[in-house]
């Protein structure tokens, strides 16, 4: 069904807080909102059990504590690792799931305040995504490596959830996890209109998703790590929080993982981000730390 053919009722939405951000689901058929919400909660719970570095019982934390070098992993973690490796590849390591080790160390005071991951991470050398070996559901990597899907985890969840829920309920679905947003199925008659704004007072942009189905926004203005309150974007190469050139980078694409990979990579890339993003051809919007606003790839003014 195309947008022109859709003549149903106005979209309806549910929203709640999770993972220190806001979850929102919008469906084009109000009669399936309750079921869609239930399905989304299940998806997010499943991802959390596998990938949260804040839950001592999560699969990634258990793997990090085990001290082993090979692990038989769940299908969902396999898919997450595969996706994360692809993100690391196309970003040339700017988005790397192995930064969990250093992020956890930087974030120690926060963990002690209640989100204790029950991992004590010390490594002698820098572990990178090159050290990950995934074969037939068996994950190999240096001992005590804590995988961190903070970059693409929500995007992965948004992609998977939106696609599967739309198929299950048979209507258009939009899933938003903080900055990571994915639409699937037929859009409403007026399209999916999205406000892109990091936080109140920051520059705002209202856009129609058009031919894109996903937008991801990465920011250095939000989460903070540890007692130094450094922002949470860590450069895998330096193993330190980046020196930000941008407050916010938003990218539109046809999957949220793709959009998030480039928005995160742009923050890590720094001053060279516009050149990098221009070559992708994707619509992108960058808000500099100096307030400079750059639109690329046909991002609407």
């Amino acid at each position, binding site marked *: 069904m195309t947008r022109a053919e859709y003549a149903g009722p106005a979209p309806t939405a549910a929203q709640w807080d999770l993972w220190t951000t806001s979850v929102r689901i919008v469906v084009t058929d109000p009669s399936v909102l309750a079921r869609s919400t239930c399905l989304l909660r299940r998806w997010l719970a499943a991802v959390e059990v596998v990938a949260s570095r804040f839950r001592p019982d999560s699969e990634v934390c258990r793997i990090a504590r085990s001290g082993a070098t090979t692990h038989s992993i769940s299908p969902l973690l396999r898919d997450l690792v595969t996706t994360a490796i692809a993100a690391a590849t196309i*970003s*040339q390591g700017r988005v790397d799931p192995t930064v969990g080790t250093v992020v956890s160390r930087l974030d120690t005071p926060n963990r002690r305040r209640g989100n204790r991951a029950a991992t004590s991470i010390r490594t002698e050398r820098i572990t990178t995504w090159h050290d990950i070996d995934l074969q037939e559901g068996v994950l190999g990597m240096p001992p005590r490596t804590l995988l961190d899907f903070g970059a693409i985890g929500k995007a992965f969840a948004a992609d998977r959830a939106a696609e599967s829920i739309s198929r299950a309920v048979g209507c258009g679905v939009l899933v938003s996890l903080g900055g990571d947003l994915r639409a699937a199925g037929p859009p409403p008659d007026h399209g999916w209109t999205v406000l892109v704004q990091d*936080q109140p007072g920051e520059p705002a942009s209202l*856009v*129609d998703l058009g031919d894109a189905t996903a937008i991801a926004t990465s920011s250095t203005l939000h989460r903070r790590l540890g007692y130094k309150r450094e922002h949470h974007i860590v450069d895998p190469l330096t193993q330190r929080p980046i020196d930000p050139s941008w407050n916010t980078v938003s990218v539109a694409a*046809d*999957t949220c993982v793709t959009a998030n990979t480039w928005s995160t990579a742009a923050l890590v890339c720094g001053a060279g981000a516009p050149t990098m993003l221009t070559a992708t051809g994707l619509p992108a919007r960058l808000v500099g730390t100096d307030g400079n606003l750059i639109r690329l790839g046909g991002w609407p003014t």
Partner: protein
Amino acid sequence: MSPHRADSGRAAARIVTWALMASAATGSLAVAAIAAESSAAVASPSTSSQTTTSHRSTQTSTNDRSTGSPANRAKPRPGVRLAPPTNSRQSATSSGS
């Protein structure tokens, strides 16, 4: 073939391999499309059934990125375009995370 060209070739092959695997895992062509070196390389990603991945043997320095932008390998893709809103009734907000 010079060592540099050989390394570039291996890196390109690895990108395509990982992208294909990701597309198979996620059911999406997006990562494959954005990473592929050529349109031929992404012609049939959904048919990939490969489930074994290992790249330890082709490890490259993370310093690669200082000499080669990932953008050099990304191809502009048609069909991903935003539009000005046709109404002010917003469906959701993409805030930073």
